[in-house]
């Protein structure tokens, strides 16, 4: 009779016990495993289980994963960032334009990161300096930057001919591993260590958990939030580079809708939407779960309407069986 959730008038008031095996906390892993197994059995012979296909899943998940890692920080700190998609496109265009202009890859990447950091900085300053809700700031920013993206090249795509760039950020391999997978695993590993084992990570969680108490404990909560937005801007920039490398082209419409997918990955992974609790590994598995479902359902031959229905149902079920939040 382990982990019976305690309730107050029907409300769960406590997380399940920390003793014993708390399988609900690991639901995203279980679900991911179950989905993988299901596809392996049903469509394993249709190519699902091949290494290239599994790499495909990882590759297609890379941008969501990178953005979701930073989003885990933002959400853990009690905020949201909806501007990541259009920021990714902005960085993609900036990088491509700089490279096209002949300044080389390093300049392109630097400029792209600069663009992402700038958006993050503005988001962060508005949210912390003026204390306005990040949902709205970043919603406005999402729209503003998308307009900028369109304007920048009059919606024309910008091809990138630099094969080193395209290799590193998109099509290449490192020791036989697709570079997109390398990037996302690197982002996940770094994010995990920072959130879990460094003072900054602690400050993020405390800020999201109780801003006032964190401030009384001497944490600079505004600075902490600002850093989270910078991180998110940088991650969006990296995602933009990955989009560009993968497609050898930058386009103004990259990343449309990626914010919701990333947030879904974060929350599926077990991070609380209300801040104070976050897990990067969970986020990654959440992103992989989404990617695997999308891939597997196509291979199963479901049409688009069925794909939507099944993917939607799986998200609901995954959380339904998942850990009940303490709040």
């Amino acid at each position, binding site marked *: 009779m382990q982990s019976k959730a305690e309730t107050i*008038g029907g409300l769960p008031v406590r997380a399940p016990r920390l003793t014993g095996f708390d399988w609900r906390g690991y639901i995203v892993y279980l679900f991911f495993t179950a989905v993988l197994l299901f596809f392996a059995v049903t469509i394993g012979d249709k190519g699902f289980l091949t290494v290239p296909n599994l790499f495909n899943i990882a590759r297609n998940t890379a941008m969501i994963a990178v953005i979701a890692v930073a989003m885990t920080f933002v959400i853990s700190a009690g905020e949201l960032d909806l501007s990541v998609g259009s920021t990714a496109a902005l960085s993609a265009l900036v990088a491509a334009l700089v490279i096209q202009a002949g300044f080389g890859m390093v300049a392109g990447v630097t400029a792209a990161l600069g663009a992402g950091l700038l958006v993050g900085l503005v988001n962060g300053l508005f949210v912390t300096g003026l204390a306005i809700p990040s949902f709205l700031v970043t919603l406005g920013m999402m729209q503003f930057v998308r307009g900028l993206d369109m304007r920048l090249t009059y919606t024309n795509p910008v091809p990138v001919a630099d094969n080193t760039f395209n290799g590193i950020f998109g099509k290449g391999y490192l020791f036989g591993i697709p570079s997109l997978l390398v990037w996302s695993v690197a982002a996940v590993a770094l994010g995990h260590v920072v959130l879990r084992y460094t*003072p900054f990570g*602690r400050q993020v969680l*405390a800020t999201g958990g*109780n801003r006032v*108490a964190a401030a009384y404990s001497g944490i600079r909560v505004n600075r902490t939030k600002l850093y989270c937005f910078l991180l998110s801007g940088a991650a969006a920039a990296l995602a933009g580079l990955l989009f560009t490398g993968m497609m050898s082209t930058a386009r103004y419409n990259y990343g449309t809708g990626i914010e919701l997918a990333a947030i879904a990955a974060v929350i599926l992974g077990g991070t609380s939407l209300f801040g104070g609790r976050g897990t990067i590994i969970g986020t990654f598995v959440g992103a992989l779960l989404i990617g695997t479902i999308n891939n597997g359902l196509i291979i199963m031959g479901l049409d688009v309407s069925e794909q939507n229905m099944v993917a939607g149902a799986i998200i609901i079920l995954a959380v339904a069986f998942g850990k009940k939040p*303490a*709040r």
Partner: protein
Amino acid sequence: MTNLLELRDIEKSFATIPVLRRASFELRSGEVHALMGGNGAGKSTLMKILTGVYTKDGGSLVFDGREVELSGPRDAERLGIAMIFQEFSLIPTLTVAQNIFLHHEPRAGGFLNDAEAERRAAGILSDLGEDIDPRALVETLSVGACQMVEIAKALSKNARVLIMDEPTSSLSEAEARTLFSLVRKLKSEGISIVYISHRMAEIFEICDRITVMRDGHDALTRSTGEVTMQQLIEAMLGEGVEASMQYQARPISATAATVLEVENLTLEEKVVDASFTIRAGEIVGLAGLTASGRTEIAEAIFGLRRIRSGEVRVDGKPVRGTDQAIAAGVALVPENRRTQGLVLEHSMHDNMVLPNLARFTRGLFVRDGAGRRAANDAIARLKIRTDGPDKVVGLLSGGNQQKIVLAKWLERRPRLLILDEPTIGVDIGAKSDLVEIIREIAEAGTAVLVISSEFEELLAMSDRVLVLHDGRLIKELEREEIATEEVLHHAIQG
């Protein structure tokens, strides 16, 4: 006299951890019955079962001679049971009046009648001697005012049984006095009251009977006249334990460095032209009525409030803003443990590490092991009742949460320690331990500023007492001048 209600052999576990073990409690009509016990003994839990907030695992509840089952707060309300919750049940985003009448609002033709609610709320509050605007949002109120609103909310229900869970913990002397006369008045109207408190004096003053709980079980029930303070302490804490709150004179070297200098401090709110100093090793008490500005002074020193004029210096260096204050070694134990003191959904060791991140970091990484060890030390030293350092602090009893807030800051070994109402909700055993610990800290060279509305505690610790009235420092009492609580009492009235 007949029993209005009886709780018989109540059992309750959270997850698999038993909190109540065959706990029994009887309440007669028209009596004031004290419920006492150490932090985490199960008092609040037992009373929450009586109000339907929790459901019991075993045992029975007899009300008015009939056995009843409560499936929620509404059932209890129907029986006429109301409770003043220790962890307030207020909605921060609603007004005082809306909170007081939440879920039993006055109506006019099916619609809410806020004007009537405000009128009635003003009436109840003025009976309580409070000057709180019924239209103010609760989130703008001080803890003391929230406590009053919580009390008013319970009173507004015209209950037959009123449970008060540490109602005076955030109140001043004067407010507590008003509350006591109210309790007597209610009693004379035949209302039965369960009164939970850690303050011995008030228990002896207003209660007819006392039940002591220990480890989830009722350990003793007696009439107030038939029991001594020492007997109560032993019932709560065990044989041979002494909980003494006596001042012990400590020689403070005349050459000790001056740690804190506050010079002509005037704030945007309340505080006007305050000047004082504290030397290393000295414990200075700050006394005053509610809203006299004590918290403001504390927060200003810690850099949380804007200073209009004047200066705060620590070790001779001017300090402004939290960053500088923290760098200078100032620590503030804030007055509201839930909103200011703790990240409730985090574990104890995470909370412990928070203000001490630098100390618990080696290289790039936080040393969780060390944090856990520190937490375990604190659990032992402050006798914190918990399953362990990993337990989410929001699930602990109020007093135990307060001990963690203290532990968190003591761990810091500050140069200047400011304590704002440090023992709210802490049981007598722990309180005397705390006094001991604070003395030790002072002896090690820390300057201490204590704000407390509890005279006993203030007197037990302070080497000197500053008296604040309406934002101005009106008196400075040397130790010799304050032999009794009366002296302090008079000083505070201004």
